[in-house]
């Protein structure tokens, strides 16, 4: 698929393998994601989604080829300049459970390079949008799973990043929280943010993503707009398309 708009992500001929582990490796991988896109990355367990996201966020460094975020090459430039460009919302609750939402946002906001005033402003905004104002000063460890997910998301977007990586952002939450999170992600996208989303909740993915890539065995086996992919493969849903392309066998 040709991407003509300015690129948020540009991976060219990338090679990577874990030392001593040949299970997940990439060879000559290419991936382009346009700016402002809502891009879904799907695949069975062990397909390489997390590794690919780690390579895009600089947690891992490619052995060959290049990974560019908004034209900045990852791993070749100063981390502090490239890491400002994106926000990361990992699947795990990646914050300090002993702290309150405000204290977590204060700390991660500072590490994201925001000033004290900017942190205060964004904290108020985010806690209001995500419905956490009433519990802003309570320790997160006493929160429900859904509230923790919202804190996780708030931290990932506190610095208004241009690209947001979302790894299972709604896993384990109730319908209301899931809906609220997806709505907020739409809002972020409407404001110009590029979303890179992975999930096993494919119905939610259908609602959120207009561009998808299916990955398996370290290779991108399909990439296009969701409508085109469904039409090309004669499938009626992303779930059917997924099973059709990746098979029905168990994956470890």
């Amino acid at each position, binding site marked *: 698929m040709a991407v003509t708009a300015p690129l948020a992500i540009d991976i060219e001929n990338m090679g990577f393998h874990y030392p001593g582990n040949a299970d997940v490796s990439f060879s000559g991988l290419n991936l382009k994601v346009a700016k402002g896109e809502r891009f879904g990355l799907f695949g069975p367990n062990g397909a390489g989604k997390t590794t690919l996201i780690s390579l895009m966020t600089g947690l891992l460094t490619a052995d060959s080829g290049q990974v560019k975020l908004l034209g900045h090459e990852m791993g070749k430039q100063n981390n502090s300049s490239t890491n400002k460009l994106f926000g990361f919302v990992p699947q795990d609750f990646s914050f300090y459970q002993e*702290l309150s939402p405000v204290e977590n946002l204060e*700390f991660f906001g500072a590490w994201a390079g925001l000033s004290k005033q900017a942190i205060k402003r964004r904290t108020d905004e985010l806690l209001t949008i995500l419905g956490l104002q009433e519990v802003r000063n309570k320790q997160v460890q006493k929160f429900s799973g859904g509230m923790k997910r919202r804190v996780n998301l708030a931290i990932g977007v506190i610095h208004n990043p241009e690209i947001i990586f979302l790894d299972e952002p709604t896993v384990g939450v109730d319908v209301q929280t899931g809906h609220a999170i997806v709505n907020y992600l739409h809002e972020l996208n409407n404001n110009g943010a590029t979303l890179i989303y992975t999930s096993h909740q494919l119905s939610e993915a259908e609602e959120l993503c207009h561009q998808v890539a299916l990955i398996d065995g370290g290779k991108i086996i399909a990439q296009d707009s969701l409508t085109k992919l469904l039409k090309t493969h004669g499938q009626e849903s992303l779930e059917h398309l997924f099973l059709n392309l990746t098979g029905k066998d168990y994956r470890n």
Partner: protein
Amino acid sequence: MFKLWTTIVKDFRILLRDKVGISLMFVMPIILVVVVTSIQNSTFNLVNKNKLSVLICNTDTGQASMQLIKSINKIGMFKVSLVPNYKTEKLMGDAMHNQDAMLGVIIPSNFTIQVDAKSKSTAGKALKSFGLDGDTVKKVGDVDPLTMYYNPILQESLRLSVQGGIRSALQLVESRETLRSLYFSINEKPLPEQLENEMLNNNTAINEIPVSKDGTRATPNATQHNVPAWTIFAMFFVIMSLGGSIVREKVSGSFIRLKTLPTNYWVGIISKQITYLCVTLLQAAVIFSMGIWLFPYIGLPALNLPSDVLALFIVTLVCGWCAVSYSICVGVFADTQEQANGFGAVSIVILSSIGGLMVPSFAMQGFAKSAANFSPMHWCLQSYYSLFLEGGNLRDVVNNIILLLIITAVLQLVIFWGLKRKNLI
């Protein structure tokens, strides 16, 4: 600076909400200091103030054994009880158990006769060697030995000192008898009591003076020994909170997120160093304050702070930094909290043992003595002892401080290498 400040605030907040960590870092060492000082103080008192209880079964009826008992009493370290009927090991053992006595002595039945014979023989030999006529020198055997039973809990050093005391009393009795025989042989009249006392009791006094660098003459006590030693132990015990905190951060997702943010993880490491350095300083302040103000209320000697307070602060700061660096080092290399806590606790006990906190390093021999040099706690303790016990000042501890700084610098390099190797920075 804002990032560092925010990180320090975050670390303090997490620390203050970790009740178990705070207990381990403050309450446990405080209990340890009080308990160990109390026990050692009791031992000091046992040796220095309380008298050792001794049961003596005198099966002899003569003068020499009476004089021996009198001499033992005069030594001053024994509380003598006479138990004439306990002549066997079994009876004496039971009596010692019933009367809480540490020692039991049985004087043999023919003690006076044998001492008398031996002294006459010695006096005869002496006269002969002077070229004077004396009584015919008869060949006599040794005096039958005294039997000393002791409670096995009595330490060897104390037992030897007891043995030395009784031996000197025995020597006095034998010398007196020899002197009397000698005098009688020459003058054919008994030795005058005054002369006898002058000859035997005019011991030269020994002045005991503790050596100090600042000229003070404070006698070291259990508090002066224990408070600095266990303060060092407490400082290194921050590993239980700090090592675990680094592992927790590493294995939780928060570390992954931190790595994706435009701030180097060294900011986090520096913040932890500052936070926990404050903790170690606070530990020292709390434990020293207890020593100064609380100990006298619970019957322990008060802690006397060194005259060079600046040197005390610098030594505490450097010891604290070294302890924090060691804890971070363990935290960086441990993969689980169990590893950090297990290795941390065991290594601190080993380092404190070889460092002289549990057994004085001057009492160590061979390998243990050399190994002490590799324990940072040894150099911390030497610095504190120089200040607390010897009245030293900054100049006296500067070499120890330099060594501690070198150890700390090596630990920092190891931390850097570990973070790089594990792709954490």
